[in-house]
């Protein structure tokens, strides 16, 4: 008797350990993933010291040591290091493997500079001179360094002016030209005739000429600005003695990593991280920031939530509160649950066929006929992407909302009805508020799922590089037909489609980390909202 019960207890203990161990493993995997992303992503921002190597053969090179490993299949057990040498415009390759035994000497010169540029990636070398056309502004390292800072600041301001001109006046006048072109096309398509038509045509032609003139003026100013922007150059000398002149305007940042103390490195890392989060991508997404992708992801998820919440909740209310339990309702429920298991790319294909070609195509034919054959809504865009994802996530919302509604005790409904409230009043004032935390849980899950979804978006409006954000200062401010960038796709694109995969690896990790953070932040916001609702409803609320 005693033996038997203790062996049954032992089985119970094993089960406890099994469950606990499984949970621990899950946690380990999740924290491991987060740690891998965080460490690798952070290395994208952390400044590495510049090392100058003199090789046995006499060659010199300057760069940052990225990794060190045992040489595979080497009988002598030698090690090699991988050096990021930059200077892609000179050498053509970003990285070099160096056998450690070939290194004759190794130093960390304080005067080595790392230049972050708008084009061609990093440049490692030493500053030699500063010029404006043929005039030498400063000669020698110290003079160049001293003169560089104020000049660089001025150039950054000029760059901002150029960008403002491009985004402002140029964009406005080219939008105006396009608008007039479409108006002319509309007139062509219309049935009107006679004097009225001639008058309209003349009016349009006049305005078109004015708009073109405005555009020309702005373009002339732009090219003048560009010219002065590129007037000054900084001359640099690479480790092997090659000299290179780089327009000061193209320099994003000058870093002398070997001079930096700990505080300086942290400051630099934070400033790079800030640029990463708020800047726009350069060099086919391998450099610069990813703000458009963050913006696109967040906007798309919120649009999706705005659509999916009412649809899912209303459907759940019908299923739970109005529909009579029966074969049909059970069938609908099973169908909804199965919908949640359909591969997301299938939803993408459906979105392409239905939303983009069907609905979007019809909208174009009815409202934007003058722009055809160039599609307006009849091509992928953030609206169609949001709707496709809403379709994908609606089962999640329905299931969670139904559960939330089912958890509201019938006594509460009867209490309201017994006061003379109608079923609708009961639903709106008692049942739905009481079920709100459960409903919100469904929306949170849907948003999390949508934020991480990439496959269906690739065919309904997500692009590698969007020319403009879906929200800007031009009327009507929110452009739902525009294509957009997405963090998930950015990870794929940069990581697997970029010409220089090795160089962008840390960037991929940083982007992935940011995507995780965006999802966490979105969820956190929704969870806080839910908790506030719960505490308002009191200690015993449902959901």
């Amino acid at each position, binding site marked *: 008797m005693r033996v038997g019960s203790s062996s049954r207890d032992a089985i119970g203990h094993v089960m406890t350990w099994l469950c606990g161990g499984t949970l621990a493993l899950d946690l380990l995997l999740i924290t491991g993933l987060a740690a891998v992303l965080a460490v690798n992503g952070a290395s994208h921002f952390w400044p590495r010291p510049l090392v100058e190597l003199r090789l046995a053969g006499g060659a010199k090179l300057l760069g940052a040591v990225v990794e060190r490993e045992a040489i595979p299949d080497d009988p002598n057990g030698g090690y090699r290091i991988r050096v990021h040498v930059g200077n892609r415009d000179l050498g053509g390759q970003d990285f070099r493997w160096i056998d450690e035994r070939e290194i004759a000497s190794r130093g960390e010169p304080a005067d080595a500079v790392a230049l972050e540029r708008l084009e061609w990636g990093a440049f490692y070398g030493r500053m030699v001179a500063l010029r404006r056309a043929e005039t030498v502004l400063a000669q020698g390292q110290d003079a160049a360094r001293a003169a560089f800072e104020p000049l660089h600041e001025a150039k950054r301001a000029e760059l901002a002016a150029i960008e403002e001109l491009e985004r402002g006046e140029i964009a406005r006048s080219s939008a105006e030209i396009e608008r007039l072109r479409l108006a002319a096309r509309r007139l062509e398509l219309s049935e009107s005739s006679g004097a009225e038509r001639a008058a309209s045509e003349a009016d349009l032609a006049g305005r078109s000429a004015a708009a073109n003139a405005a555009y020309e003026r702005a373009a002339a100013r732009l090219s003048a600005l560009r010219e002065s922007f590129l007037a000054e150059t900084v001359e640099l000398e690479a480790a092997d003695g090659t000299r290179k002149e780089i327009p000061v305007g193209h320099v994003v940042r000058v870093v002398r990593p070997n001079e930096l103390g700990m505080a300086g490195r942290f400051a630099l890392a934070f400033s790079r991280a800030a640029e990463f989060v708020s800047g726009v991508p350069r060099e086919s997404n391998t450099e610069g920031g990813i703000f458009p992708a963050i913006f696109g992801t967040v906007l798309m998820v919120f649009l999706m939530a705005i659509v999916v919440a009412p649809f899912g909740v209303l459907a759940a209310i019908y299923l739970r509160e109005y529909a009579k339990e029966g074969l049909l309702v059970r069938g609908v429920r099973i169908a909804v649950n199965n919908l949640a298991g359909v591969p997301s790319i299938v939803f993408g294909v459906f979105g392409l066929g239905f939303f983009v070609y069907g609905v979007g195509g019809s909208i174009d034919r009815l409202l934007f006929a003058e722009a055809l054959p160039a599609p307006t809504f009849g091509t992928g865009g953030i609206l169609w992407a949001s709707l496709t994802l809403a379709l994908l996530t609606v089962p999640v919302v329905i299931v969670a909302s139904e559960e939330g509604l089912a958890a509201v005790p019938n006594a509460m409904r009867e*209490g309201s009805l017994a006061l*003379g409230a109608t079923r609708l009043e009961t639903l709106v004032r008692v049942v739905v508020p009481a079920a709100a935390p459960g409903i919100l849980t469904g929306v949170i899950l849907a948003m999390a799922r949508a934020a991480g979804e990439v496959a269906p978006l690739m065919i309904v409006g997500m692009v590698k590089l969007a020319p403009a954000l879906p929200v800007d200062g031009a009327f009507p401010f929110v452009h739902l037909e525009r294509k957009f960038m997405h963090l998930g796709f950015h990870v794929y694109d940069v990581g697997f489609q970029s010409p220089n995969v090795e160089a962008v690896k840390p960037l991929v990790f940083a982007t992935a980390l940011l995507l995780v953070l965006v999802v966490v932040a979105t969820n956190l916001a929704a969870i806080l909202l839910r908790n506030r609702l719960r505490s308002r409803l*009191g200690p015993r609320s449902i959901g």
Partner: protein
Amino acid sequence: MTMPPPHHAAEESLLSVEDLSLWYGASRALDRITIGIPEHRITAFIGPSGCGKSTLLRCLNRLNDLVDGVRIEGRILFRGSDVREPTLDVNELRTRIGMVFQKSNPFPKSIFENVAYGPRIHGIRQRAALEEIVERSLRGAALWDEVKDRLDASALGLSGGQQQRLCIARAIAVEPEVILLDEPCSALDPIATARIEELMQELKRRYTLVIVTHNMQQAARVSEYTAFLYLGRLIEFGETPRLFVEPREKQTEDYITGRFG
């Protein structure tokens, strides 16, 4: 002097049930019930579990309408008109016949909003008017002094007895004529029960009360009239003292003396 029929009180009936039968699907829950409920009195329905007393009560404000598969025959007259008339506004009926449930069911809202719920539904919007109704109703339910400082706190934080009195306050806030109480004290301790019973004596001056209870002592303590139901039939109905002291029916006597139930 003629004897009143056994299923009617000696007084004028506010609510009279005539030949009422009810089926849940195929099973009959009420069997040809005829009973008259007098105004400004407390009428108690007693009987063992499953005898149909709650079902009968829920017929009076048509709360059984919501149950799937219910079929009802017979008439229920409230001030002379049939509550089962299809043209009758059931929400209006439920406004005039309020109800308090077995398990207190405050809404997950503040104390104030719970009481103001009914008046708001019926179109009262002004804050001052609502505040006045809330105070009057809470006083009427003997809860005002306990909650007046925390009207904005959640109703779910109140004790069981307070929650039940809040439900009473919520019911009287819409000025009903009748209050149906479905075993209102079954989940309460004796002290809270005593307070509710005391309150019922106050309430009957203004309202007509119908209480379902499985506690015979409670029926004897609070009610003027008692109906004993058994297996869906009305076995006996009469003035409470008489029914408890000299029951006419053998089954009633067996039940009140505790031989079954």
